[in-house]
């Protein structure tokens, strides 16, 4: 069966510090991968998605970037965090050609 791992679960970082959140998927190959951010009352905002290694699409301009160095690894990064980067970040995977997405447990990021 497929599983998705996302870490860390919680993170408190000072403004201006770098960020690296990691997501890995097991039990499947060549998945679509997604990073969402969830802010209170705003639902899920799609940040990045990837259909293959090195292929990243950005949905909204922002202070974050994403990379996919391996088939089942998706990393969300920032060089300098802003207060507005605080939120709940969710990674998700999807079989290519299918529609339902499966989510990780999320990372609660607080920028102080």
């Amino acid at each position, binding site marked *: 069966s497929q599983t998705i791992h996302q870490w860390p679960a919680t993170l408190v970082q000072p403004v201006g510090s770098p960020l690296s959140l990691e997501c890995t998927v097991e039990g499947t190959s060549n998945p*679509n991968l997604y990073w969402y951010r969830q802010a209170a009352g705003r639902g899920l905002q799609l940040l990045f998605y990837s259909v293959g290694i090195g292929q990243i699409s950005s949905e909204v301009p922002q202070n974050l970037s994403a990379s996919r160095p391996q088939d089942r690894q998706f990393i969300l990064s920032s060089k300098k965090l802003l207060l507005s980067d605080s939120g*709940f970040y969710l990674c998700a995977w999807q079989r*290519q050609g*299918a*529609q*339902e997405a499966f*989510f990780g447990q999320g990372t609660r990021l607080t920028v102080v």
Partner: protein
Amino acid sequence: AQSVTQPDIHITVSEGASLELRCNYSYGATPYLFWYVQSPGQGLQLLLKYFSGDTLVQGIKGFEAEFKRSQSSFNLRKPSVHWSDAAEYFCAVGARGGSEKLVFGKGTKLTVNP
């Protein structure tokens, strides 16, 4: 591009009462439709999905949803709510063909009173 509206931000029901959460979508053709549930501090879990065929779909935890093309709706229902159903519920829509991204509504928070 597709979009989703969940008109109710917060709903409160009593345990044992029936539940209906509303979802309206905008898309030029028949979309793929989903309901997800999120417990506090957790990821999203798929409750049910509609791709084609029977417009009444059954999901996990006793939930069902009905696709109504004429109303562009995909409302989630449960005949008798349990306290453990308290969570946030998200409706999502996917396009047929092309991009496989899912677009989510803003969610409905469900509170269950004893």
